[in-house]
């Protein structure tokens, strides 16, 4: 991953090139156009050797017409803002960028999702990470506890700073937005990535990382880019396996686990860096629901749709037979089970029985 400084000039150059081609076309009397990669699951392919969703390269051309003139103007103004940020070495959060647009009179964005979309378009147009454009997300990266020392730099002095993740007590270390500068020291045997903050709290409270000699990371829903990148760098640097523990429902499987492992469809140009191909699925599997006699809830309409969609359109599930079987099994059962459902057998059943049982046979984990 290239750093901001090193790439700064080339981003400005790219913005200038794009603007210049628009300007030239207009003054030649032709309709200007910009080519954007299509940001959807339809436009990605899955190569298990590479281990992540890769863009297929289909693009949509946005020609400047009466109907597109508003978006076109907004895209250009967003590019101009990005150029200014990069040149002055400043940053703006996505929300701040949205507020900056409020000064653009008629071209302003009504709601933040509109400005986020334009930002994502610009990001994909240049094939860069939004941090390289000077934009940063507000979202938190995730929490870490366990056998790990993170080496960061002190923002004021630039001196190396050792952060021991065993020393946060009942709290945790928070993954920063940019993780490229971090270095790691660890002797842990594996990384356990957890969907919910509640389960993470339980494992931290009972110092599960100590007995299992591992690193615990809480994603809090779909993992952010920073969280994905952190896990990826950590596991690559230290060559340790990553096990994922999420709810046994289509959201946990297809949204959270799949995004962590192979990336997303909407920012596919970045998946190469923001994914964890090594990740394996610990649970909760559909078979777990039966084996551990877990209490369930009926699947909702959206769950069923999500599962069917995964089977039909998602290149990751289309590739893995084991996953197809599992998702079909879940659909057939028509139920879902949360991580916390294990509490049926006692609050600490997950620590004493479930995790040790599962970890005894990591080869059986779903891909």
């Amino acid at each position, binding site marked *: 991953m290239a750093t901001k400084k090193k790439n700064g000039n080339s981003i400005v150059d790219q*913005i*200038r090139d794009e*603007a*210049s081609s*628009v*300007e030239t076309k*207009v*003054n030649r*009397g*032709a*309709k200007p156009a910009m080519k954007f990669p299509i940001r959807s699951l339809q436009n990605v392919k899955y190569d298990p050797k590479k281990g992540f969703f890769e863009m297929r390269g289909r693009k949509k051309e946005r020609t*400047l*017409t*009466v109907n597109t*003139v*508003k978006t*076109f*103007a*907004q895209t*250009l*103004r967003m*590019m*101009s803002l990005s*150029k*200014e940020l990069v040149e002055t070495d400043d940053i703006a959060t996505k929300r701040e960028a949205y507020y900056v647009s409020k000064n*653009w*009179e*008629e*071209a302003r964005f009504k709601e933040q999702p509109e400005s986020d979309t334009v930002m994502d378009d610009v990001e994909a147009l240049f094939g860069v990470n939004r941090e390289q454009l000077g934009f940063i997300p507000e979202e938190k990266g995730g929490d870490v506890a366990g056998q790990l020392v993170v080496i960061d730099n002190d923002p004021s002095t630039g001196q190396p700073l050792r952060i021991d993740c065993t020393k946060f007590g009942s709290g945790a270390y928070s993954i920063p937005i940019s993780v490229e500068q971090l270095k790691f020291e660890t002797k842990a045997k594996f990384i356990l990535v957890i969907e919910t903050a509640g389960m993470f709290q339980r494992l931290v409270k009972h110092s599960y990382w100590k007995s299992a000699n591992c690193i615990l990371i809480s994603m809090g829903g779909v993992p952010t880019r920073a969280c994905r990148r952190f896990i990826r760098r950590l596991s690559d640097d230290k060559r340790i396996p990553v096990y994922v523990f999420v709810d046994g429902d289509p959201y946990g499987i297809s949204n959270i686990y799949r995004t962590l492992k192979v990336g997303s469809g909407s920012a596919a140009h970045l998946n190469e860096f923001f994914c964890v191909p090594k990740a394996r699925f610990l649970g909760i599997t559909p078979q777990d629901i039966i084996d551990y006699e877990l209490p369930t809830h009926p699947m909702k309409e959206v769950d069923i749709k999500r599962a069917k969609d995964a089977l039909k359109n998602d290149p990751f599930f289309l590739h893995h037979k084991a996953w197809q079987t599992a998702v079909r099994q879940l659909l057939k059962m028509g139920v879902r089970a949360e991580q916390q459902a294990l509490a049926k057998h006692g609050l600490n059943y997950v620590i004493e029985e479930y995790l040790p049982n599962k970890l005894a046979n990591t080869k059986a984990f779903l891909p």
Partner: protein
Amino acid sequence: MKKGRASQKGGGTAQAELFGEETSSEMAEQKTRGSSKTSQLKVTKKNRTPSPKTPKSRGVHKVAKQREISVSEFFAKNRHLLGFDNPSKALLTTVKEAVDNSLDACDEAGITPEIHVAITQTQDDRYLVSVQDNGPGITPKEIPRIFGSLLYGSKFHRLRQSRGQQGIGISAAGMYGQLTTGKPMTIVSRVKRNKAHRFSIMLDTNTNLPVIKSDEEVEWESKHGTCVELELEASYKSGRHSVDDYLWQIALANPHVEIHYTPPKGDARTIARATKVLPAEAKEIKPHPRGVELGQLMKMLKDTRARNLSAFLQTEFSRVSGKVASEILAKTKLSEKTSPARAHRDAAESLYKAIQSTKIMNPATNCLSPIGDDQLIASLMERHDADFCAAITRPTAVYRGNPFLIEAAIAYGGKSFSADEPIKLYRLANRVPLMYQKMACAISKSVIDVAWRNYLVQQSRGAMPVAPMAVLVHIASVWVPFTSESKEAIASYPEITKEVKLAVQESGRKVATHIRRGRRLADQEKKKSYIEKYIPHIGIALQEILGLTDAKRTTTENNLKDILEKSRKL
């Protein structure tokens, strides 16, 4: 008014034994009224004893239980059939019957109608209704039967377009008033060059005969006309289904009428006429062979004066020439020379079948008097001040041998409408607005049946369309097929629903053109403003990124404007 055939027996001396024992003999026939001429009411004093021919005669040995029912008694008990189900509807029906009669009378006499309607509250639940017209007036001899006897009238047996058709309306209102207040109806009428008469009349429900309480010559300021006054138990409401709404719609359906209205509450008002053009006179026609049923045909065969079948067909029916008559008879085993009186049942049946399979020209259309496209548009514009108005008159069509004609008009846009409410639907039958039973009516069903989205009008499945719009549908016919005696909804004959749909669709297309034109203009306007709004921002962004000079930025913006405007025109 129901200027009926003069009655020699209109008994001015009949005793007012309202609830006496004696019964009329004719009631059994009233139920078959719709299809047969036999229903002509021949109530006379002679008939006041039970006739041995009546179907009920087999019950003679049980006299105490089996009894004739008089027409009036029947309707007094079944007042809902005539539109008197509740107090507010009773008020509306009373005004409606009186106004319908006035308009019919004026139209027949070729007089531009001017009608005064006044309603005053006399007690908590009692109202005095007075309707006065400038019609030709009624001779004193006819007044008692017209107002004091049900099913007496001039309109039932003829085939001609008129508002009233049964001879029930105004006398039923009088009967209702009498039942609820015990007071007689007052009629003042004056025929040109004669003195005015004031009658006070009640109705004997047992005998269906008028009882004259008083009859005096009076001075009257009008040269001719009729004024009906009666008191009844009622309640006055405003809004939908109100007298106000009805009069407003009457004016819509009859652009040539002027109405002066004094409501029980609030100020008197005048609804001015939208046109001075009188409707074309509607001619009376003979029945069309296709519209006659077997029983009626048999009766006509019996009653005719024609000497042979060929002459019978030609004289008693419309659209039957000598050639058509031979064509019909050739399909039967009957001779043209056969005497109609001797044609037995089987002969009548073969004749009936032959008529059905012979091609006969459609009935003449001069018996119908449509409102007319121009009048409809003038009327809707006068009442609604809409942005756009279109009207369609369909060619005459036929159901069951009765000619009818559909007119439709649509008013779109303007201040009087709201865009997110269902359309306003006016249902008119022979120039009379239909106020109740909207969803039972063939007109409403047909309007809902139209695929309004094709005409750029919102509509959910099976519901009235939603648009800033009024739809008016008028059916003109010599015999309008109502679903009940109170004349509130049109029966769904397939021929009628088809014509209504065609008329509404045709006017819908015109409205769609109007809407499309409006949208196109708005669209162009929007695109133009789009270009002007956003091009400067492209200029600003390019200037910021490329460091353009102000001059260069202006040229770029202008070039861009040219490119976009050119492409818009293409």
